[in-house]
């Protein structure tokens, strides 16, 4: 009479899906997990680590809502298998929130009304943090081009561009 070991066991079948031991280092903290090999980094973050700031939009690499930083580079967590992230440094929107450097960007998004529903916003912010670090926010055209991997269904693009340009040009007026 052991503990239930997943849906297959509960149904009385004995199909063993391959699991692997993975140590994920996310936002500076390490967690040991036993994951089905199919689990994406996105699902590991949301379902296993309760970090739901990273959003699942299309789940097929087309929308950018799931953008996180891995070893300092922006990537799509929905197309990355969690098991391949062993030993990598993952930073999510929650991790950035503790970093004061992201504050001006968050404030600029609010100031410029750079969102409506807000579902894409965590991905936009993570992507924009990387964009600024890459030095690619020198013009509106560059911001549009190098943020094109982040889709906004509400169409807040003009305000997103304005918010990022504001931060890039050093205008960091405090939020009133």
């Amino acid at each position, binding site marked *: 009479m052991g503990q239930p070991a997943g849906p297959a066991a509960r149904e009385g079948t004995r199909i063993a*899906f*391959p699991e*692997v031991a993975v140590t994920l280092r996310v936002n500076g903290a390490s967690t040991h997990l036993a994951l*089905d*090999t*199919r689990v*994406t980094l996105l699902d590991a973050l949301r379902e296993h680590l309760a970090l739901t700031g990273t959003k699942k939009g299309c*789940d*097929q*690499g087309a929308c*950018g809502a799931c*953008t996180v930083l891995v070893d300092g*580079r*922006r*990537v*799509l967590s929905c*197309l*990355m*298998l969690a*098991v*391949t992230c*062993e030993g990598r440094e993952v930073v999510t929107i929650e991790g950035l929130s503790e970093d004061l450097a992201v504050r001006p960007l968050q404030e600029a998004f609010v100031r410029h009304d750079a969102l409506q529903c807000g579902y894409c916003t965590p991905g936009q912010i993570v*992507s924009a943090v*990387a*964009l600024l670090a*890459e030095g690619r926010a020198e013009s509106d055209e560059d911001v*549009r*081009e*190098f943020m*094109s*991997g*982040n889709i906004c269904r509400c169409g807040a693009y003009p305000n997103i561009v304005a918010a990022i340009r504001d931060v890039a040009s050093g205008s960091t007026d405090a939020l009133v």
Partner: protein
Amino acid sequence: MRSFDYSRATAVGEAVATVAADPAAAFLAGGTTQVDLMKDGVLAPARLVDITRLPLRYVHHGQDAVHVGALTSMEELAADPVVAQRLPVMREALLLGASVQLRNMATMGGNLLQRTRCRYFRDLTCPCNKREPGTGCAALQGVHRMHAVLGTSEHCIATHASDVAVALVALDAVVHVQGPEGERAIPLTDFYLLPREEPNRENVLRHGELITSIEVPLLPANARSVYLKVRDRTSYEFALSSAAVALVVRDGVIREARVGLGGVATVPWRAGGAEDVLRGARAGAEVFQSAAQAAVQGAIPHRDNAFKIELAKRTVVRALQTVSDKAS
């Protein structure tokens, strides 16, 4: 997604041996196409061998060529200073592909091996000779505005999606591979297979062979090159038509010419006929038109994609004009 076993390779020989020993095994690098197609159930390897920790992530600068480790990301290669200076056509093609996030993940070896695919390939409810040989091609009578006009057959008309591969075929790049029987070098122009009786076979690699590096000969210092991509959206979209073009023009005469086409063919397309028209001719609008005509020689339109033939010609002319203006 079908369940699979996972292992992480620490040496090239080990990775090759592991995949070669198991017909249902596959390499995993950036995963941007592979994981996506696995989610759709189109690909269902029983074993994935993660090669991302292999020491194949580098750009070496030789006298006459750059040697690109197969695990170098698209963004890393685009940031290389020698590439920017001597291979602008490749750099532009890299930066016009996908998005920054995808280019950070996607490796150069994986880019060359991305599946030639269309919506019917991804849709398990539709016949597709590439996914299930012998079932037919749903695209022939279906929605095929994005599909190919060059290198097609009655078996498959899916377009090869890579931008950088178009630049690389024009640049005479060479693919270095390691397999269970040793190493070999394959010119990229001989690497891809047209969709004939077996459209599921897209290149000459044998099971277990791994791309280890890509050798890209430098253009002559006096060459001018450009990658022009025409698409429905300004950014983050596949090409409707693209052209990778390089010219060496001296005293108004074209001494060397390279032309590759993307977005219109089943494989990255080297337009040798166009190069023959250009080489030795005086640079100008007329010869550019003739070259464009030669570039689409043999094109076969279908109901919704006939516009691509004229679009490809105009893309070639515009690209040639652009480098010609730069050169003068």
